[in-house]
């Protein structure tokens, strides 16, 4: 997905058109709509007595129709190309949250916070390691103070507590 604005003009026009924002969004909606209709294995019922599958059919059917419409419009009247995604930043940010989720139940709040900050710092330009570590420890203590001591949220804090 790297149709940056500069390149879009130079690569062949058909590919540029297929990768435009509207077409990609339309295809996404169409896929979600059709997927929903396909997975809707519930009883439909009638308008007067709706089964659990009635509303999903309505919603996902309409979504698929809108998706087709958005795609068609994007193909007929090409919109701007899709912006380049910041892939490295995306991965580090999401990975930092994942690390937190994995660490919180096993190692507790303090360790999870420190891990999150360290991984997330790879996405930006926080600079020297000492700055990252002090930020991590500072935020960990602040979180314990606010959430656990201040607000009385009950969660595992240290690796050795339960």
């Amino acid at each position, binding site marked *: 997905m790297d149709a940056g604005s500069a390149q879009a003009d130079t690569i062949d026009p058909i590919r540029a058109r297929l990768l435009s*924002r*509207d077409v*990609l*969004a339309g295809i*996404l*909606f169409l896929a979600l*709509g059709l997927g929903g209709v396909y997975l809707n294995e*519930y009883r439909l019922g*009638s*308008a*007067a*007595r*709706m*089964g*659990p599958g*009635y*509303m*999903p059919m309505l*919603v*996902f059917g*309409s*979504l698929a129709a*809108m*998706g087709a*419409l*958005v795609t068609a*419009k994007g193909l007929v009247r090409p919109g701007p190309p*899709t*912006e380049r995604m*910041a892939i490295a*930043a*995306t991965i580090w*940010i*999401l990975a*930092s*949250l*994942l690390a*937190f*989720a*994995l660490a*919180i*139940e096993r190692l507790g*709040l303090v360790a*999870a*916070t420190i891990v*999150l*900050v360290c991984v997330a*710092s790879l*996405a*930006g*330009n*926080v*600079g020297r390691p000492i700055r990252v570590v002090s*930020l991590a420890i500072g*935020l960990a203590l602040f*979180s314990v103070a606010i959430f656990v001591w201040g*607000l009385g*949220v*009950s*969660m595992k804090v240290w690796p050795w507590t339960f």
Partner: protein
Amino acid sequence: MDILGGLWFGLGVALEPANIGFCFIGALLGTLIGVLPGVGPVATIALLLPITFGLPATSAIIMLAGIFYGAQYGGSTTAILIKLPGETSSVVTTLDGYAMAQQGRGGAALATAALGSFFAGTVATLFIAIAGPLLTTIALSFSSAEYFSLMVLGLIASVVLAHGSVLKAIAMIFVGLGLGLVGTDVNSGELRFAFDIQELSDGIGFVPVVLGLFGVSEVIRNLETADWRTARIAPISRLWLTRDDFRQAAPAALRGTVLGSFLGVLPGGGAALASFASYGLEKKLARDPSRFGKGAIEGVAGPESANNAAAQTSFIPLLTLGLPTNAVMALMVGALIIQGIQPGPLMMERQPDLFWGLVASMWVGNIMLLVINLPLVGIWVRLLKVPYDLLYPAILVFSAIGVYSLNNSAFDIYVTILFGFVGYLLLKLECEPVPLVLGFVLGPLMEEHLRRALLLSRGDAKVFIDRPISLGLMAVSAVLLLAIVLPAFRRRRGEMFQE
């Protein structure tokens, strides 16, 4: 309860020591996030939702509301001093506010924004107190058919009056409605789209979705464009207005207040639309429009009053009809439901302390904001020097803890991660996340009302056009949809958000 009696009663609730405290915390937090670019009211309120579980309903709502209108004050400070709007609703303030600051009139611009906002807040409070009971009376006669039509209108208006592609926004509504279907069907008890995942049996959590869409994806987006240098701040002059300033600013503030109060009630209207519309109006009315963009004080007074008025009056549809019209109001619905309160016309009668307490607290909060913002502006300016590379890890930590503390379940964090990615992808495809959130919140209610309306009419869809109020609501929806096809209206809509 008549209006004056209601306000007096509400003032009593708002002035209880605990509520004053929560109002102050809300106003303070609102100013803080308004000043900090890249942290918006939606993510902040979502973050604080879990904390409000333990509070009484009235205190919780008073605090969350304070965050929302407080952010309108804070957002103008950065717009004026460093040309960086803290919120979308203060984008236009950067034009003339920053120009004034460069001419050494920054103090006058800040004072205009704060005083205009305070005046607008006071008027908007009265506006809610008058319009609220009126709309409630109408809403009490609604049956399921009217409710369904009203929600259709709300959703359509919210995409037509907002900016961006209408087709994609409508598709986003359906994505939201689809997400709302996940979980146990209330009617049959059957599990829908849960894929044997036990955590999904109660549906997808609202807070994890919103924090992913508005918190995490914003962080990624900001990292892309972040300016790592610290901001250069224009020096602040004396924080007061000259007689001439006042003469020029006062009528603009008055017009902005009226415009904002009305636009705020419309779905999709809200603070951003109000500020853009007010700027356009002032420019049109000015004897010399060329002054705009070069430090015209009306260009600060009008929009800043309008956005504050609109932020407050956007509570009207929520408090009277139970209809959220923007993402913040959708969060308020979440907060109320957590407290076991179904927002709607019965709230005013069953929870009078909540309704009137909230209305009165807005006025109290506006007084606090005046004090928080004007004399203390120096402190907020210093906060601008906090670089984003220290800020975003903190945002992520608080999001993760907030989401986890909901159910002490790591699953909720996985949902946040997923929607953080989806939100960022959608930003790249130029799809607004707000319609998705509105659809997600309204989905279960719409299904219920559609089911009931059609059950009563024995499956005849004519019920939506046989009942006069429902017919009216549907007709307005149809007109709005048709209008968007007309080129003339499309152009006006484009201009509105151009400036």
